[in-house]
């Protein structure tokens, strides 16, 4: 949980100076419940109840011969349909999201590292540069990528000119373009938490690591990386989760053969008559898979402070 807090806590001041002090937890009392009530109520009505409703829908059965009309039931048929017909899209979602997360990590780490230890007075400016692109709508930026990667665009042109790519080759409408788009869109979510945890680390410890191991790579593996692990963990979650559920990149940069589970859910909801139960079943399966992955992942790599 504090893993995700990294994104918000970047640059927080007023830290405890003399080491940790006991948490001043007040006992129960009516104040606690009054403070909790509105927020919890909100989450119950607009998160828990919709989820329950979605679960109910995913178990509904259709009136035979009346597409779009269902009755309440406990029918796992939609789950069977979801898992048999849309398995490729499901696998693709996890594969694309996983690849994008890995790529984002590779790109984000040097940037976060440079911001934390090398940037000096440029640190603030670099921070702004990481956040700023956020404010141009992500749909606009994704469309810009479509233009950049287009068949007549500069990237394809250059690659063809260099004969790296055959003259019939293209980037858009491929899985590569989708992964590139996902990587791009969620990169700041990877940079910020890693930066936050590196910034907290004492550069002297890394220097000491350099003394002990001499080899830069070993220092990184034994000292720097473990110290930034909470940030890496938060960053990978913040990248992987939205990437796995995304459909905008696949829609704008891909083709029919690169559809992800998000595209299926969206089209089942909006374009297929009677698609609600299957879409609901797909949503639930996606959420279950992601939550399972998250818990395994956090257990495996996280410290106690995480969940």
């Amino acid at each position: 949980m504090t893993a995700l807090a990294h994104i918000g806590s970047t640059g927080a001041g007023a830290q405890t100076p003399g080491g940790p002090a006991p948490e001043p937890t007040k006992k129960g009392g009516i104040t606690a419940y009054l403070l909790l009530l509105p927020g919890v109520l909100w989450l119950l009505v607009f998160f828990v109840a919709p989820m329950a409703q979605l679960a109910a829908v995913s178990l509904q059965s259709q009136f035979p011969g009346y597409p779009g009309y269902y009755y309440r039931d406990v029918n796992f048929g939609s789950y069977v349909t979801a898992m048999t017909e849309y398995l490729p899209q499901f696998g693709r979602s996890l594969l694309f999201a996983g690849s994008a997360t890995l790529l984002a990590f590779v790109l984000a780490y040097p940037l976060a590292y440079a911001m934390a230890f090398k940037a000096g007075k440029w640190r603030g400016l670099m921070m702004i540069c990481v956040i700023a692109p956020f404010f141009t709508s992500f749909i606009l930026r994704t469309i810009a990528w479509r233009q950049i990667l287009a068949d007549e665009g500069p990237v394809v042109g250059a690659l063809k000119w260099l004969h790296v790519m055959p003259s019939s080759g293209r980037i858009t409408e491929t899985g590569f373009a989708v992964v590139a788009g996902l990587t791009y869109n969620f990169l700041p979510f990877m940079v910020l938490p890693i930066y936050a945890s590196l910034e907290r680390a004492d550069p002297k410890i890394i220097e000491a690591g350099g003394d002990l191991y001499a080899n830069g790579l070993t220092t990184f593996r034994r000292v720097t990386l473990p110290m930034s692990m909470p940030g890496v963990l938060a960053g990978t979650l913040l990248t992987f989760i939205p990437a796995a559920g995304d459909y905008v990149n696949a829609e704008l940069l891909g083709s029919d053969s690169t559809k992800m589970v998000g595209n299926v859910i969206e089209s089942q909801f909006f374009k297929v008559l009677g698609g609600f139960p299957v879409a609901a079943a797909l949503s639930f399966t996606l959420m279950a898979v992601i939550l399972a992955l998250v818990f395994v992942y956090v257990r495996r790599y996280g410290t106690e402070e995480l969940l």
Partner: protein
Amino acid sequence: MGIFSKSSGAFRDAKGDLILENVTKSFATFTAVDDLSLTVPRGSFFALLGPSGCGKTTTLRMVAGLEQPTAGRIKIGSTDLTGSRPYERPVNTVFQSYALFPHLTVRDNVAFGPKRRGSADPVGEANTTLELVQLSHLADRKPTQLSGGQQQRVAVARALVNHPEVLLLDEPLGALDLKLRREMQVELKRIQMEVGLTFVHVTHDQEEAMTMADTVAVMNLGKIEQMGAPEVLYDLPRTKFVANFLGQSNMLHGTVQGIDGDFTVIGAGDHKVKVRTSRMAPGEGGEAIFGIRPEKTRVHDEAPSATLAGASLGPGTLLDVSFTGVATQYLVDVPGVGRWAVYEQNLDLDRISNKPGDQVWISWNPGHAFGVRS
């Protein structure tokens, strides 16, 4: 409103000695303070000394009102403060690591208390107190822009400005380096003399406690082991813990073997040592521990004469010799007794000739020895 302000006003007007009566504080798994009773005379500088976890900070927090005792009473003079809130008490604290408000300037930090008390001129009071701690020139800064020593003074000023009946200091010098710590010790002592308030100082630094306080109470495991003037405590510790916590002591565990005039004889194996009976801690049983301070002993190359019987030990093996400038420290292993330390002041002109491995004897003036019960 009426009842509330009246009662809190009554707490705030309390004057007199600080009295703890049978105070106990238990947490879920342990007892931090165990049936503690003590009286701190008004206007004195009192130190609570002990290792971490001995209950001294808990005691302080109970006096401040930040914790409530599980049992017992806390009073100032005849006013019972037990159960009242921290803001109702005429008690202020200088916190460990200072706890200065980072969003307020130094002046506003100091004026915080006077403002809350509804003083007519909080800023004026703050300025006066900042003068006392010689920080007027930094009044407009934020605490984070000050050095450790300056922050410490602000913390003291912030508490003092309220003229509390009792000022509590929770390891206030712990975060400072040695040189600054010594300066601040003198400074705090000066301020205490000047304002004449009761200071209760919590520390684990025995030297700090002895330098500053009129009365030192040594705490261990939630109880006070011994209380008194620093020089008395040092000269005549009544428990093994005090003997070792307040300075260093050479010890010999043995049994009482008889009386020889004014002295009690304690024996262990072949060794016999004597302690003035008046310097034996009262207690039952034959078991006793003999103690002598290292700086009260000397080393010899030859067996001491018979006149020193009961005030010497040996032979032992010299393990280590270290020259520290003003003194030379010897570490001697005496078979059947253990390792003893000897500090000899370097008064002689001749060079130290002893080397590790040499056979040596130790002697002392028997009047300096003390005995504690195990």
